[in-house]
């Protein structure tokens, strides 16, 4: 990880976070992902009733922590699936297809990124870059893309609206992935 850090440190503008963009079951605004300046805007209207939440005048954080069974002692261990993951996946099955879906090719200033996902019964089972930057940034690309793939597969495993903890996700990967997700109906 130290080596990766050293490489990433010299390419700061390409890094960001996008776990939440593809969080399981909550992808309401799908994007065409064809623009490199702004993406994924959508407005939807639901008729369900709502309680209007209190305004935010209070500066006191209202939080409740839920620690998963594995969280404290097992921070580094594998396989702590969120309890609700199964339900999320099941919900996705109803609307999503199976097959492979290739997002648009996105030009970023160090090359072109294009992502292909494989979907089985509404669950992303693989994500690969069919195009990735090459040249002087090879070292970065070679290490970053496997991480981005893991992250793509992971985001559907937790029933959350957002994630804290940054990532290596490049804007190109993210934008192309959004296009692939939209095609898959995810």
């Amino acid at each position, binding site marked *: 990880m130290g080596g990766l850090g050293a490489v990433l440190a010299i390419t700061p503008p390409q890094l*960001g976070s996008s776990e939440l963009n593809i969080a399981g079951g909550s992808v309401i605004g799908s994007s065409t992902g064809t623009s490199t300046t702004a993406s994924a805007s959508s407005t939807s209207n639901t008729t369900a009733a709502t309680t209007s939440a209190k305004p935010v005048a209070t500066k006191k954080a209202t939080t409740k922590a839920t620690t998963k069974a594995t969280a404290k002692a097992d921070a580094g261990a594998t396989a702590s699936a969120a309890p609700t993951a199964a339900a999320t996946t099941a919900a996705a099955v109803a609307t999503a297809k199976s097959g492979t879906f290739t997002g648009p090719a996105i030009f970023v200033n160090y090359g072109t990124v294009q992502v292909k996902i494989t979907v089985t019964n509404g669950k992303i089972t693989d994500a690969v870059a069919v195009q990735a930057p090459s040249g002087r940034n090879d070292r970065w690309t070679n290490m970053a893309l496997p991480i981005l793939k893991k992250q793509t597969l992971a985001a559907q495993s937790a029933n959350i609206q957002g994630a804290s903890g940054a990532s290596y996700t490049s804007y190109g990967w993210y934008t192309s992935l959004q296009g692939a997700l939209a095609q898959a109906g995810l």
Partner: protein
Amino acid sequence: MNHLRRQFPVWGTIVDVDCYSQSVGGAELDRVMELVIAFCEDVDRDFSTYKSDSWVSRLRRGAVAIEDCPDDVRQVWDLSLRAKWLSDGAFDPWAVEGGFDPSGLVKGWAADKCADMLVAAGVAHVQVNAAGDLALRGGWFDSSVGEVKPWSIGVVNPDDRNEVVKVYEITDGAIATSGTYERGAHISDPHSGMIAIGAKSATVVGAEGWLCDAMATAVMVAGDDAAKFFGQSELAGYQVFAVNRHEQTAWEI
């Protein structure tokens, strides 16, 4: 209930805004979102250390005094002073090579500003995620059951981002995570100048985004010594979750 989710590139990363409003929708909601995006671009213009003509870059090379900077820059300067004081210098934007660099605080500060802009415009339920620094307002609207719920925000395992190691349910507040995995080892210890080794990843949850952001960095630097910072009255109600570097363990407040 109107719902709008918008992601846009700024500050070398992506900001993700997810919001719900009963009263604001359509073109009006789009218009408010454009104001938020414009604000973020202003922040980049004022604070970027990559732009030689930003106020912060000019401060760094001594071309301008803080007194001559615009309000937002002076405010961030003052908040940086407070964060440095609250962390006994473990968070110190003045100890950065090249001079004053408030990057460890600006994202959290700006996320709060964005969220408050939306709330002021009548958008009751807001999540602003600035690459892992989040501002939350009013919970979110779950249309499947027709009710407002707290935002569930996962803390990613620094060793394996396939995992969420902890979930905070936050209705109003902020959460920020720092880690050496985040953008390489970009956090250094202001006392020693060495890479921060206090924790592998540090998350702080509380009322104000700038303080969460800065204190997450302070925990990265000071490790479990940082626990004492959170005994101060200014940090009452703030929560910490830190993953230790070598053992497979974590500690929290």
